[in-house]
């Protein structure tokens, strides 16, 4: 399952390295500023897949918005290929946490919205048709978003981001609304697309196994609400061993999985109350 008609060839559109340097974001609230991101120092190599996990509300979507240029950090810098992100950056493409499809357009027309400006009509149509086929949506190309299920809408939203053929692909829980089987299929599909058209991928997920299966590295974010005042947002960076495609049953992954879950505050085995603190080792 490879893409046969990339909108542009690989050489035209390289994957971009991403550098986040001491990124900080604080939202104003009636009771004073609420820090959501602090001291984020991360470097994504071009073509790397990095997964972002962390408890709900810890700032994963916010971090993605800093890279896409939809939001501006209060401090620090975000660089794409060494140049700062200023405003919405055409080198990135986002699949939002909600599908955000235009309700009055068909799925195909929604996907076409993602095509880079200036794509020739025929090439664009072929590209949209191919992405819809990859996502298993060819039968539904002419349907409106309200006529399809949540999982289908989410796949269309992913197709729209892929249509951009971006150097940096930002995916906010792209498989969150999918059933378990479709989710596994789509994970493999993402890896195929990535192999055919390498992009730097920053992927938010709540699924630790998904993170370990897809990513080169996993960033564990912490919520700053309960953290000490100087703790940075990135609690831990985990290098995932092995090369893709990985064996989902790999023993090393199972160990990392337990480690990550404990980092998220989920015990993987029964814990006596007295031991609990040991598992929040970060």
């Amino acid at each position: 399952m490879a893409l046969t008609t990339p909108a542009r060839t690989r050489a035209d559109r390289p994957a971009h390295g991403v550098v986040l340097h001491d990124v900080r974001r604080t939202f104003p609230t009636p009771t004073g500023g609420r820090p959501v991101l602090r001291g984020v120092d991360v470097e994504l190599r071009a073509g790397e897949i990095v997964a972002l996990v962390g408890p709900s509300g810890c700032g994963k979507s916010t971090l993605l918005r800093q890279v896409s240029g939809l939001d501006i950090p209060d401090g620090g810098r975000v660089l794409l290929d060494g140049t700062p992100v200023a405003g919405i950056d055409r080198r990135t493409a986002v699949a939002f946490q909600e599908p955000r499809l235009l309700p009055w357009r068909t799925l195909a027309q929604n996907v076409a919205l993602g095509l880079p400006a200036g794509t020739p009509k025929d090439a664009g149509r072929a590209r949209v048709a191919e992405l819809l086929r990859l996502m298993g949506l060819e039968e539904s190309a002419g349907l409106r978003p309200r006529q399809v299920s949540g999982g289908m809408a989410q796949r269309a939203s992913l197709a729209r981001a892929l249509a951009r053929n971006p150097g940096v692909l930002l995916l906010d829980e792209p498989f969150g609304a999918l059933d378990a089987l479709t989710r596994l299929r789509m994970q493999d599909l993402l890896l195929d697309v990535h192999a055919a058209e390498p992009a730097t991928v920053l992927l938010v997920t709540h699924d630790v196994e998904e993170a370990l299966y897809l990513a080169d590295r996993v960033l564990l974010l912490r919520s700053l609400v309960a953290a000490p005042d100087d703790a940075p947002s990135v609690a831990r960076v985990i290098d995932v061993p092995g090369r893709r495609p990985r064996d989902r049953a790999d023993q090393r992954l199972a160990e990392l999985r337990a480690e990550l879950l404990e980092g998220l505050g989920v015990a993987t085995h029964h814990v006596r109350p007295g031991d609990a603190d040991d598992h929040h080792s970060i």
Partner: protein
Amino acid sequence: MTHHAAGTGPGPVTDHAGRPLRALNPFDAARDADAVPAAAAPGEAPGARRPRGGFWSRPVVRVVGGAVLPLLLLGVWHAVTTGGLVPPYQLPTPLSVWDAALDLVARGQLQTHVAISVQRVLVGFVVGAAAGLVLGSLVGLSRAADVLLAPLLGGVRAVPSLAWVPLLILWLKIGEESKVTLIAIGAFFPVYTTVAAALRHVDPHLVEAGRAFGLRGVRLLQTVQLPAVLPSVLSGLRLALAQAWLFLVAAELIASSMGLGFLLNDSQQNGRVDRILLAIVLLALLGKLSDSLVALGERALLRRYA
């Protein structure tokens, strides 16, 4: 003269069926299993085969049902006037109203009255609605325009229609301009108010998605904002047309030598109750007819875009 049709205020933005506009609720879709839409053929609305609402929703029933009360009213009118229950100088019979119509047609006057009134309504409506679209878009999209313009326009809106008449006559004389201007003022506000309010409430998530995919300015407006507010623009236009008819009579009652409003006024002075009734019935028919035509266009557009 009522000066504002109901519903022109900045209320909740709903489409013609009263559904909230553009609530992109992920849970609506998420309720369905993945398999559900596969059952519906492409291009077919879900539930298209389901009978909807039964008897009262059938097109024939809607047309015939809508005619029942007016015909009944006509029957009662006929009965009470021919039965001598009401004296003819207060309420002439339906037939004598019909005769008055034939008489005016034979003199070539009724056609002129109707034509000039329709023309005034159309010109005033087009001018007012276009201005409403432009200013409504400006105020709905730009904070600055909202701050600077909205209070002034809100004040202008509060002026009753008849209050403009002396000024318009003073400035524009009693020609067509003064009448068309008054009608345009009437048509302006429903469009202005609904468009401004609807644009302010376009789902910010959708606008952001549009921006994320490189849309800006006019392209963003075309692709996201205008389609999102289409249902409210259309209902604003319908209200504007209704209001144009209301303002027409205000304009023609005062200074004119032609038109349905003039016919009303003239007949009152001559004691021709039959012609007064004729003018009222014609205003009702023309208003309803033009509204139905716009409603047809509205339905077609909504089926395509919403």
